[in-house]
Structures are given as structure tokens and as C-alpha cells.
């Protein structure tokens, strides 16, 4: 599986929930903070057509917005 990317902002309780969930499932991921990094912000926007976080993606095409356990499980094959 390609590296899981999580788009986030600072002080985002829902982003924390996603990250903690991935950790609990032993899923490695890269965090991309769209508040601090413009390139990440653009990538997030290109992917989801909005600037809402958390956004989780594996292939850079399919993604899950928000902390949605069911959808995350489906996306990650958990």
C-alpha cells in the first residue's frame, strides 16, 4: 500500500482522532499540515475541492473527509 496521507490543520480535534485511530490500527501515515504548508494546502484542495480537514487518502484520488471510522476502514481495507 502506498503511504497514507492525512491532511490537517493545527488544533484540530478531528484530525487528532484520525491520527490516533490510524496509530491504533498500526497504519503508517504522513501528516500534511495545510495551515503551515502552501503546497499541502493546494494538494488538499486539488484532491477534495475544499479546505476541510481531516482528509485521508492513499492513492491521491479516493479520500475520506472528517473522522468517519466506517469510511476510513473501507478506504484502508481495515
Amino acid at each position, binding site marked *: 500500500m502506498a503511504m497514507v496521507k492525512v491532511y490537517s*490543520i493545527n*488544533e484540530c480535534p*478531528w484530525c487528532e482522532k484520525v491520527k490516533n485511530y490510524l496509530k491504533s490500527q498500526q497504519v503508517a501515515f504522513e501528516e500534511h499540515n495545510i495551515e503551515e504548508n502552501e503546497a499541502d494546502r493546494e494538494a488538499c484542495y486539488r484532491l477534495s475541492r475544499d*479546505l*476541510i480537514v481531516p482528509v485521508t487518502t492513499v492513492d491521491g484520488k479516493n479520500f475520506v473527509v472528517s*473522522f468517519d471510522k466506517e469510511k476510513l476502514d473501507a478506504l484502508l481495507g481495515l
Partner: protein
Amino acid sequence: MNIYDFFVKTNQGKEKSLADYKGKVLLIVNTASQCGFTPQFKDLQGLYDKYREEGLEILGFPCNQFAGQEPGSDAEVQQFCRFNYGVTFPIFAKGDVRGVNAQPLFQYLTREKGFQGFDKDHPLSEILTNALKENFPEYLKGDSIKWNFTKFLVDRNGHVVERFEPTGSMERVEKRIVECLEKK
């Protein structure tokens, strides 16, 4: 002392003088954080889009003192956050708007325009009052800011002309903004 004497902190940490806004009609709003249930941001952006060219400026001051969720919104808990609140008007640094550490600007605004009660005809008023009685009873005392999205309208000469509680209708806010914009 008037509104143009105050300095505020931008979200980049820089000092900004409110005197930079002389001649503009200002709507100063204490806002929820980026992760609350915040349909009011959309309404405020709507006003900004409509009247910015005529001289309206909206200044948002995020604050963590009023919990994350809008009372009465337990139906759909929003499980995401929006970057920059989804708005294009200035959002300043997070800070207190009530209590002992309230920023000087908000101490001034609440002195100029006190609390007149929540709007009786708004469905949220009763829910909000009960939520406050239960969770933050001290917030109901005095003229302090009671909840997110309290708004202060300042005319082009820096006079604080009105205060709207979060229960105030946006139609009335808009009407008063237009009245201020038309006075030159």
C-alpha cells in the same frame, strides 16, 4: 478613548491599529474556533461579499471560551474543521473576550454597549439560556460577552452604535449595516 486607540493582534502575531479602519463601517465579531458548528461564518461572509466595496469591514476574533459546539446542535456533530474558517475577512489572533483576561478591545466594546438580553423571537434564545444556566452560569451575569458570534457595529466615525447577540437576526444586522454605510 475611542475605538481607534486600540491595537489588536493579527493571526500572524503582528500588532494592528484599529485606526487603520477609520472611515469604514466595522462589524466586530467574536467567533468560534475553526472546529465548532459555525453556520454564522457563511452569513458573515455573505454580508462581506455584498458590502465590502461600500466600506464594510468585518473583523473576526476567535475565542475558545464558549466550548466547541453550538448548543442545540447535537443532532449533527460536525467532525471536521475548516481552514481559515472559510472566510476572506480578517481573522485576528485567538484571545479572551470575557473575564479577567479579556482583550482591551472587548472590555471597551462591552462597556460601550451592554447586554440587553437574547432576542425573544429567536428559537436559539431559550436553548442558549438553558445551556448557559447549566454549564456557564457566571456568563449570564453583567454585560460580558455571552457566547460566540456576538457582534458590535461601529460607524464610520468610530462610534459603537449597536450590539447584536448571537440570537440577533442577520436581517436586522444587515439593515443597520446599510444605515451606517449610507451615512457619510
